[in-house]
């Protein structure tokens, strides 16, 4: 009997503990979502004045904010595509072929993963200013691709672990060319790894602050725009936009992770 109450107590304690941790993790997000529906119109926009969609309406008049969101999306999608293409090719190439300098490439890959982001940020800044590339959309895309590529490679590599190369040979023995084999045999087998890597590249890009901070020029991403206005007070249209982004990402991830897209494609 005593043992049972002890076990029960332990269970309640762990539920309370985990609950508190989740509250900690979600508190600012709950604040952002709730306050995006706040009818308040006076700074610092904190006291609750009732429920309204006003800030969502106002958001669509705030061109600079919408533009910063557009920039974020263009950068995330472009760098995701670039990193996925370069990374997938590299992961497969490094798996299939032995060559000199492979260990060196491997070593280089870990650098963007472990060094503090600020170091990569200032390093790219000095590079761009030295070779006179004006900072803006292009430099942002280059920078985001740079920190995403290793993660794509790790993801694809994990999938390659159980990859049987003899099916490629079989394909080529049956007369398919090297390129056809790559697209029709190699890619479909690696698809989950590539998809996971691409999704990670996309989220890393959306989450980045520090590296973008140094290479943006005047092309502000959404978080950089918020950073600029934090001292003077942030209006709840930022909360509205954050809420919409959160909903969008959730839908995107649920669709890609649950294999829903695959099911829909099969039905069509």
């Amino acid at each position, binding site marked *: 009997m005593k043992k049972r109450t002890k076990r029960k107590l332990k269970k309640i304690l762990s539920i309370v503990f985990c609950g508190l941790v989740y509250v900690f993790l979600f508190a600012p997000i709950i*604040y952002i979502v709730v306050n995006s529906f706040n009818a308040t119109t006076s700074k610092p926009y904190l006291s609750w004045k009732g429920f309204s969609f006003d800030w969502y309406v106002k958001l669509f008049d705030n061109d600079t904010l919408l533009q910063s969101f557009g920039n974020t999306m263009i950068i995330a999608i472009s760098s995701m595509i670039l990193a996925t293409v370069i990374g997938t090719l590299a992961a497969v190439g490094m798996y299939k072929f032995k060559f000199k300098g492979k260990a060196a490439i491997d070593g*280089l890959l*870990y650098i963007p993963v472990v060094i503090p982001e600020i170091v990569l940020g200032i390093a790219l800044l000095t590079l761009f200013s030295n070779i006179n590339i004006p900072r803006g959309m292009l430099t942002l895309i280059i920078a985001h691709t740079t920190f995403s590529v290793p993660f794509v490679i790790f993801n694809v590599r994990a999938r390659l672990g159980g990859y049987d190369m003899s099916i490629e040979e079989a394909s080529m023995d049956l007369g398919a060319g090297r390129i056809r084999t790559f697209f029709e045999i190699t890619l479909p087998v690696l698809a989950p790894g590539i998809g996971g890597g691409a999704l990670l590249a996309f989220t890393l890009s959306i989450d980045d602050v520090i590296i973008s901070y140094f290479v943006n020029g005047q092309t502000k991403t959404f978080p950089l725009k918020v950073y600029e206005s934090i001292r003077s007070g942030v209006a709840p249209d930022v909360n509205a936009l954050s809420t919409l982004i959160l909903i969008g990402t959730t839908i995107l991830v649920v669709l890609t992770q649950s294999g829903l897209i695959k099911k829909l494609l099969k039905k069509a």
Partner: protein
Amino acid sequence: MTKHKFKAKTLPALSMVGPVTIWLLVFVAAPLIYVLVMSFCGIDQFYNVSYHFTLTNYKRLLNADYVNIYGHSLIIALATTLICILIAYPFAYIIARTKSKKKSLLYMLVIIPFWTNSLIRIYGWRSLLGTSGWINTFLMNIHLIDEPIDFLYKQGTTIFGMVYCLFPFMVLPLYTAIEKLDNSLLEASADLGAKGPKTFFNVILPLTSGGIFSGSIMVFIPCLGYFFVADILGGGNSDVIGNLVERQFQSGNNWPLGAALSIILILVTLILVKIYQKLGGDMDSLGV
């Protein structure tokens, strides 16, 4: 024969690994080497980098104000890592050992906050913690306090923000390590008469130490550089090395000095990663 070898092996290898090699050389290796070179350069009267060898920047790193900030940065990073371990370990343990179907949901709930940009979430905390923020309003409404407490602009708040941003990086490797634990080992330990704490320290902890090491690396190193957390939540005494670097590359404009400061960060990273590898750490598990 050599032509055949070129077509069968060299050409495909080159076209597959070539792009990433060039990319890494141009956008990772070259800029970092340039930062190293620049850290030994001076500046002219227009704050442009002037290419003559000097150790001035490294001498300036020993400036008392800077040393003070390294100290604070170290305290912040150590405190953050320690707090993350203490909270994340039991937390990861509970969700990794959950037997119900809810397990994957509990895991996803750790990842979901990532989908909102970290700066936006830190701004959320700023709004919650300020004198007119929701936490103060709540505490005053229930008459627990009469005057609002100013949580912002303190070193503790910076640590709080760092823990918040980096907590998932501690949870994920711990979760992986704990999930791999073999149940039969724990049963064997219990059968042999070991009580809970003894099993924990002699069996569970050693088997999951790999997760603690990789989590610590992924929390400690970024902590030195996350200048925006210190900037938004903290005040005096809460700057990290990242704030020093950021200033040199923005308003201060002494790029070579900023480069020398970055070299400290690179050295700290190299030393920690070497220790991590010595302890048997796997580099791939740092990639989350």
